[in-house]
């Protein structure tokens, strides 16, 4: 725990859930949030849970919105953890925090990939497709919190804004932005999307997809943005021959999506692959800028800057392939 005091977190979480909470261990100490395993001492006995506390210096979204969407996803049969308690300001800490049930299984990408043979990987890709199709058909009228809305043109606007905020020449991203504006899909579809559906936020057990985590980036956008993000090379962790998260084929994902009633749009999928890739290049650049500007002393944030060329390379390769089609 580089920045947060464990005893203060335990006090804050105890206030939040109404019973004594102790930290059992750290699941991950990420750049955006800490995920901790905790024990709650209920009158009827001790129960295990997961606490997530935002540490973000880059962007924080209200956890109330995330909790709201997880409830909606659960109501539509998606595998998600149960929300136990949440607050936008944890007592004594001041950061957004959420406590959920534990979903057993693997989440660390390389462990997930090692656990899957080819047929299990294909089945998982199909399951991811089915889960995304169900999510994209969920009615958003039941949500009480307003969601950000990104159509192609507004996504380009935010890409351009972020590029200017970084105040460093990014010709590769500028070129991508030109391509994206020129080829923006003219027929806009908008659905509830997860926003960060990828290897690392998926809990996988021997039966397949046991849970989908980290709903903080959920938004209204083109449904193809979710499978496009899942298929970025960056989430394949070296298994480049398996396009979907390093574990499955695009055909399996697409079949799963369409079988569950989703409408796959290849043109939009390609557009969002390039858009998401360019945005992640800037996302990594802004993480390292937060370090350089002294907003954070996290070496993990600093190291993000070295991955920007990988994303610029991926983005330009996608554009080159799209241009030569």
């Amino acid at each position, binding site marked *: 725990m580089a920045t947060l005091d464990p005893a203060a977190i335990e006090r804050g979480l105890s206030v939040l859930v109404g019973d004594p909470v102790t930290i059992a261990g750290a699941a991950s100490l990420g750049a955006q949030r800490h995920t901790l395993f905790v024990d709650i001492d209920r009158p009827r006995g001790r129960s295990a849970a997961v606490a997530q506390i935002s540490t973000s210096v880059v962007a924080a979204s209200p956890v109330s919105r995330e909790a709201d969407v997880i409830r909606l996803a659960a109501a539509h049969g998606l595998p998600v953890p149960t929300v136990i308690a949440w607050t936008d300001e944890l007592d004594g800490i001041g950061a957004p925090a959420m406590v959920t049930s534990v979903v057993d299984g693997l989440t660390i990408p390389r462990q997930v990939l090692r656990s899957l043979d080819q047929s299990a990987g294909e089945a998982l890709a199909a399951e991811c497709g089915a889960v995304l199709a169900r999510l994209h058909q969920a009615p958003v009228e039941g949500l009480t919190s307003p969601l950000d809305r990104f159509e192609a043109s507004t996504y380009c606007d935010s890409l351009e804004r972020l590029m200017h905020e970084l105040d460093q020449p990014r010709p590769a991203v500028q070129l991508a932005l030109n391509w994206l504006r020129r080829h923006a899909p003219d027929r806009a579809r908008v659905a509830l999307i997860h926003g960060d559906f990828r290897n690392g936020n998926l809990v996988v057990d021997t039966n397949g997809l046991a849970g989908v985590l980290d709903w903080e980036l959920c938004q209204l956008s083109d449904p193809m943005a979710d499978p496009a993000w899942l298929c970025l090379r960056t989430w394949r962790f070296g298994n480049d021959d398996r396009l979907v998260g390093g574990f499955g084929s695009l055909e399996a994902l697409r079949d799963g999506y369409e079988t569950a009633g989703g409408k796959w749009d290849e043109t939009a999928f390609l557009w969002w692959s390039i858009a998401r890739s360019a945005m992640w290049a800037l996302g990594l650049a802004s993480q390292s800028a937060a370090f350089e500007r002294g907003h954070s002393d996290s070496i993990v944030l600093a190291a993000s800057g070295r991955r920007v*060329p*990988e994303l*610029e390379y991926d983005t330009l390769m996608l554009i080159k392939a799209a*241009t030569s089609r």
Partner: protein
Amino acid sequence: MAHTLRHDVVSATNGPAQYQVRVVANLCGIIARDLAADSDQTRRDLAQLVGHDGDLAALANELAAQLTRPDEQFEQAALEVLLADASRRANVAKPGYGDA
């Protein structure tokens, strides 16, 4: 440095500290490859693209400014230069990444 961190310090640490040591070891490897890489090729390519010589930062700035005025033909030429540059830099961060 990377070797010492990866082989001696990692085994002597655990938890978040061990993760951070791995990150720092990786960064040391990147710095070593960065120092060994040919950083002048991109500058020469950019000079040819924009039509005059200059230092790398100034040429990159000029290209970025030029690209704010969309021109498909120019972008085709820029794509090849930027792709070669991104490939070189990606290979510094992760050897082999920019060859696939």
